[in-house]
């Protein structure tokens, strides 16, 4: 018995050493999910309470600060454009030929009726600046071993006070994430599926978002095509590109 205890005592420091810190995990996630520039053609399948709608779009982005999205289908949304320049967001509606800046409470509105809000789109993915990350355990998600990381907000201007992330121990992708309000209410849930190797990084082909306060069946974000570190046409990242 003493021998077993000694073996366990010798093993524990080794186990602790293998467990990365919360910040290290976040850095590894960024290596997978972030890039200097990106071009994505995607499909959003929105499972509403009454109907399922599919919205197609093309997005060009530079880092996390600048992004230009043009909606391609359906006909009602075709030609609608969205531009994010740092902390500002504009939407252009071809039917009205108006460019509206999304601010204030409008940021809480749903993007095209999906489970994502404009606020989610504006959310700075550089989580390390606003959250203190702690690894709280280890669990299995869809057969993959995951670190359970809890991120507590250290800044007052964040949409979610607590984020709980299940990070794949091998591929360092957040396979599941739960976003909580200050009251402890679960607000949103995200799950990643169909993870494939894109260049030298792992990237999900499908992300399922679920706004827990909405009654629909969630929103599937399906990546049709993705290119990293491509040249983004300069003219797309200005308000002039919207009209």
């Amino acid at each position, binding site marked *: 018995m003493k021998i077993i205890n000694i073996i366990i005592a010798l093993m524990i420091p080794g186990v602790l050493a293998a467990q990365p810190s919360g910040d290290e995990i976040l850095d590894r996630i960024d290596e997978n999910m972030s890039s200097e520039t990106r071009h994505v053609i995607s499909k959003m399948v*929105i499972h*509403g*309470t*009454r*109907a399922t*709608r599919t919205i197609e779009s093309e997005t060009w982005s530079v880092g996390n600060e600048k992004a230009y999205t043009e909606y391609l289908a359906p006909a*009602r*949304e075709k030609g609608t454009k969205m531009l994010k320049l740092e902390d500002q967001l504009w*939407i252009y*509606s071809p*039917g*009205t*030929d*108006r*460019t*509206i*800046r999304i601010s204030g409470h*409008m940021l809480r*509105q*749903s*993007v*095209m*009726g*999906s489970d994502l809000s404009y606020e989610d789109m504006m959310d700075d993915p550089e989580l390390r600046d606003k959250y203190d990350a702690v690894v709280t355990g280890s669990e299995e998600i869809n057969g993959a071993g995951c670190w359970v990381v809890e991120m507590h907000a250290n800044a007052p201007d964040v949409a979610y006070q607590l984020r709980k992330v299940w990070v794949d121990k091998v591929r360092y992708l957040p396979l599941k994430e739960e976003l909580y309000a200050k009251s402890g209410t679960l607000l949103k849930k995200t799950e990643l599926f169909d993870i494939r190797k894109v260049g030298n990084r792992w990237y999900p082909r499908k992300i399922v978002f679920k706004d827990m306060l*909405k009654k629909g069946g969630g929103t599937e974000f399906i990546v049709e095509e993705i290119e990293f570190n491509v040249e983004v046409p300069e003219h797309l990242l200005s308000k002039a590109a919207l009209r």
Partner: protein
Amino acid sequence: MLRFFIKGLIRDRQRSLLPIIVVTLGVMLTVLGHTWITGILGDVIDFNARFSTGHVKVMTSEYFENIDQMPNDLALLESEAFIAELQEKYPDMTWVERISFGGLIDAPDEEGETRAQGPAAGMALDLLSPESQEAERLNLQNILIKGTLPTSPDEVILSDEFASRLEVEPDDQVTLITTTMYGAMSITNFTVCGTIKFGVGALDRGGIIADISGIRYALDMEDATGEILGYFPGGEYPDEKAITLTENFNNKYADEEDRFSPVMVPLRDQNSLTGMIDIIGYMSGIIISIFMIAMAIVLWNAGLLGGLRRYGEMGLRLAIGEHKGHIYRSLLSESVVIGIVGSVIGTLIGLLFASLMSKGIDFSDMMEGSTMMMPGVYRTQITLESYYIGFFPGVLATVFGTALAGIGIYKRQTANLFKELQA
């Protein structure tokens, strides 16, 4: 005998004047109070029926549960076929579609950039069909301040206060930013065709009225509607009929398992109007009771005073052999005449004042901060009940007061009468 009483009352004015004045005042106040309260409550109910509740309203069960949020994602689908079915099943009633919506009205500058913006609460109704009576129902033509009513789906009317705040005039373009039925952001241009004054604080702050076809396009609600309002013929809200119709409809259509099944709700169960409708039902009884008690007490006292003044007369009549019961009955007969005269005069004066106040008194300035759907102008309403509500209580209170006061007659001792008269 009756002529004798009437002559006595006319010749001895002290015997009749005060009771008649008291009865007249009481009956007049009763009639006026009744017409005023009937008018106010009736106006509130009528206003709610026209603007918001209908006499009955059909919507999905979950829409009804969340009605304050204007949840158009829970709207009734295939509304055209459904309304045709309602018209076939209930041909006497008028059925209309309405969509309530919220959003932002954005007024652009010359460059198309936002110049002014404000939150709006809107109502979409059929303003373009030739057979539609919605404009008349909402009295839109009469509350129009500037411009015209919409003549195309891309025109809207703004409340005059809202238009002034946004600095927009008829023919200016505004953009409605709202949410579609599917939850997506919707941006739609409209031309302001006119401005109106609702006379309701909550609506005047940010009200918009538009044709339902234009709003259907903006909210992506093709062949869908938030609410279907039903109106009984005649315009008055018949509470019992509405309850019966609601029970029949819900037995047939409502399904607890299906949150999108249609449910019908009568006016009384909307906008917290239940209490108000019940008050109208009890009001006549309440007013009559208060009047009867107050008047009987006053007239009892008047009778006692009259009894003291006529102490000698009563004593003499008893002394010459008139029965106590006969004297008592003669006093009651006098009181019937007084009651009838006072009630007739009181009813006439009450109706005169009520008709003078029937054009209404404008309280809208006092209700600027109100968020309730209440009309700003209140008026008296003369109904058939107004003609008799004060009459019978007026007569009964007089008789009752006299009956109480006259009990003293029976306490007089015949043996002492001459002593009393000598004194």
